[in-house]
């Protein structure tokens, strides 16, 4: 299969597309206003809870919030007119709620997070500008794979790589530190999508016999196994279990979706279990994570402290929470990054955590709908990959904080503090928006019917 010809000049959209776009953008604007109201209310309440007064900067806050969101919205109107109307408002809501809780925990971090949000929105617009046709990315699949690998290796290089809290996932250039792994995820999604679309016919036909099993010819696997193996090795060396798990899921799910063969999923599970067992045997930090997961009270002041405090915060929140700003969660280490979900659980209760859960579910659902509507295999598979990244990253950290899963430190997308994560997720969002926009332009009737 070859990439379709690309025209520099975009064709005039049909009236149906214009009508659909207008409707979707109006909906988006309405939802954004709703998100702004919720964020503003939460911001005011959190301040009332802490200082019994409205925040002094509530008007500047509102102005910046509106400027950023209206900016993104206008970009959608100009650059992705027919795109889905839910994606941006949900991301904005999550980002805003996250900001409110970061501001409530640490004013200095909040100022940084605000800057990162601005950078994220700019990155979003730039991505929409740069990627006019998402199918073009398929051409650069190997480049993307290479970039992904390079980004992953970057923190291991002496001089620029830095290890923070035991995970060597940081790169420092001058005053700026960032986690290249956050961007590597997107690069890998592009690579996997491009490669799998090209080879999926071959990969779905079992021609090669290994004992009693029919499997596709191993040579088709090689590049993917290589990329996967390399990323896993690097991640284990970097001690970033959460990201390792996420990469693995990305790989297995995309392989399964592309080929339609459940056996990939099963083999993937098997591979995962073997990998998990081997790393449990060979790495002390993995053993520690697992034993803390099984019984955090074995070492309540040491390794179990964080997860115990998170459980206490969630329990203390109960059904409706103690109220924004009224929690006492400052005692949880990494409260503004990995554990922000526990803070939200304490102050907004089960209602708040369920709302966040629903927002992610809605985001995932929208992402998968975008994937399903797209008739082109590559954009469709890419949308699947990007959705998997967001949906399962949120699942891994929410499950970790609630002790459903062993804790592996990843950020809660859009909510947690963290510049790299935020900017990367906005880029990811922009790609989903672009795919959605292109789909609607190509098949407006179908989209209208949805």
């Amino acid at each position, binding site marked *: 299969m070859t990439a379709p010809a690309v025209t520099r000049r975009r064709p005039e959209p049909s009236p149906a597309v214009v009508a659909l776009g207008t409707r979707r953008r109006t909906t988006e604007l309405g939802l954004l206003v709703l998100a702004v109201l919720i964020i503003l209310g939460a911001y005011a309440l959190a301040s009332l809870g802490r200082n019994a007064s409205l925040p002094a900067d509530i008007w500047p806050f509102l102005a910046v919030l509106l400027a950023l969101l209206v900016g993104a919205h206008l970009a959608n109107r100009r650059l992705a007119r027919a795109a889905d109307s839910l994606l941006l408002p949900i991301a904005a809501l999550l980002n805003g709620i996250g900001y409110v809780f970061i501001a409530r925990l640490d004013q200095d971090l909040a100022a940084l997070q605000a800057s990162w949000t601005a950078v994220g929105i700019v990155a979003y617009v730039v991505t929409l500008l740069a990627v006019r046709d998402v199918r073009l990315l398929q051409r650069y699949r190997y480049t993307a794979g290479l970039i992904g690998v390079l980004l992953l290796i970057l923190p291991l290089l002496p001089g620029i790589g830095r290890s923070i809290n035991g995970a060597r996932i940081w790169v420092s250039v001058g005053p700026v530190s960032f986690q290249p792994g956050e961007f590597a995820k997107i690069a890998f999604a592009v690579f996997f999508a491009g490669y799998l679309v090209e080879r999926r016919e071959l990969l779905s036909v079992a021609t090669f016999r290994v004992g009693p099993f029919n499997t596709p010819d191993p040579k088709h696997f090689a590049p993917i196994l290589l990329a996967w193996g390399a990323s896993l090795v690097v991640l284990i060396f970097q001690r970033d279990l959460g990201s390792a798990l996420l990469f693995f899921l990305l790989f297995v*799910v995309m392989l*399964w*979706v*592309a080929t*339609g063969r459940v056996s990939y999923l099963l083999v993937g599970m098997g591979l995962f279990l073997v990998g998990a067992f081997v790393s449990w045997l060979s790495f002390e930090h993995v053993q520690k994570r697992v034993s803390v997961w099984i019984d955090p009270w074995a070492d*309540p002041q040491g390794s179990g402290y964080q997860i*115990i405090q998170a*459980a*206490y*915060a*969630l*329990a*203390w*929140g*109960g*059904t409706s929470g103690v109220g924004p700003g009224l929690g*006492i969660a400052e005692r949880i280490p990494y409260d503004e990054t990995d554990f922000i979900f526990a803070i939200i*659980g304490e102050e907004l*209760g*089960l209602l708040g*955590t*369920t709302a966040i*859960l629903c927002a*992610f*579910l809605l985001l*995932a*659902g929208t992402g*998968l709908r975008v*994937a*399903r509507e797209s008739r082109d*295999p590559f954009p*469709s*598979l890419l949308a*699947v990959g990007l959705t*998997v990244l967001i*949906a*399962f990253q949120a*699942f891994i950290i*929410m*499950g970790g904080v*609630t*002790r*459903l899963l062993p804790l592996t430190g990843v950020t809660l997308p859009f909510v947690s503090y963290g510049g790299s994560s935020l900017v990367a997720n906005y880029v990811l969002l922009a790609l989903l928006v672009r795919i959605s926009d292109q789909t609607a332009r190509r098949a407006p009737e179908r989209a209208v019917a949805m």
Partner: protein
Amino acid sequence: MNRQIKALGVIVIICYVAVFAKLNQVQVLQAQAYSDRPDNTRQLQRDFNQPRGDILTADGKTAATSEERRAALRYQRVYPDGELLSAVTGYYSFTLGSDGVERTYNEELAGRTPSLKLHRLSGFFSDTSSEGDVVLTVRKDLQETARDALGDRRGSVVALDPRTGAVLAMWSNPTFDPNLLSNNDAEAAAGAKALYEAAPTKPLLPKAYRERYFPGSTFKVVTATAGLTSGKVTVDSPTYPVVTSYTPPLTSKPISNFDGNACGGTLLPILARSCNSSFAQMAAETTGPDPMIDAAEAAGFNQPVELDLPRPARSVYPTDFGAVVSRPEGSAPVYEDTPKLAQTAIGQNDVRATPLQMAMVAAGAGNTGQIMAPHVMAEIRARNGDVVEKFAPFPWKESMTPEVAATMREAMVGVVTGGTAAVMATPGWEVGAKTGTAQLGTKPPRSHGWMIAFAGQPGQPAQVAVAVIVEDLPGVSAATGGSTAGPVAKAVLDKALGVSG
């Protein structure tokens, strides 16, 4: 691909439903269990950020209050009288936990009991908070008297109202300043605690109800009760020989009277003169072990103490004296441990009692044999002064029958009018008492001086009972208890009765 995408959607939903289920478990179903875990300090942290009720003495003085601070923890616990009431109030520290009334009545002080919450609701439109004030039975003036009378000497004072069990005073020296432990500055509090813990005299221990001592001769009240209750001892018989010492069966170690005095006779004279030889013989030969064990346990020994303060120590009396060795004619059977039994009769060997326990022994004799449950809480008040809960006194033990109690009262009054506790005599009041000198078995000899007493109108239940111990005095003599603990007990008794001394 569409089939897989749909299936993927289902997988995502399953994962999220699992998180939702787990959230329900943590935030709702098991939330209370998590919040109640002892290492969960969230409740405490919230408590330190909202007002807490005061602790007031029976005479209306503030024993503990919360002051608002502009700090991470909004409220700081303050005890205006420092050391004076620490044995009762305890302390309330963010890092060190709590003790005393601060601990037992924490829910009331924090305003979490149903009655306080209900009271708050009834004041519908007022925005009062629900924290409650605890009013003590302890009188500040009496506490000061106890402190001043004991002075620098180590020891404890307990004063009770025998009719209700209300603790009127409870002082131990040395003690601690709860302000230092309750400091919200964790480092300062930890430093103060370490300093107190390093002191060999254990100032952090409220010894009046949590430390056990040899009761010495004050225990003869229990021995006499055992004799009377068994029916083998009356005011008329037996008459114990006038000797300087008594050697129980199966041993050659004599039990001597103090200062080499010869004494003996019937019950009243031997209690008045505190004859070691006679009481040792009474337990060993007249009653035997079972009446002794019964009398001790009826007085509260070997039982968890019904007191509204944390972890009161239980007083102990041995319950096993071995097998019967012989059954001599006209005497209780001889047991393997009869020599030990003889020593327990005078409050030595394996007998240990808290000062509170000995005050209750006196209270029982002064209150027709009824020992009311001791308590320090009189009532709980809402912030506007409404009483939401009152302590309802209830009997804890019947230490003796009313008949035996009448005899014991007479016998103890005899100790004051014509015996070792003459110092306790107070014009206009019927005072009964018993001195004690508990030998510590050290060389050179040292001892605890004891005085237990009750006072009331003749024919009426006693109004006050006291126990005083002055610890670790040099020497051993019959006069030790009366001359050391006696004046302290007398001062407290007089103050409690309103007698100007």
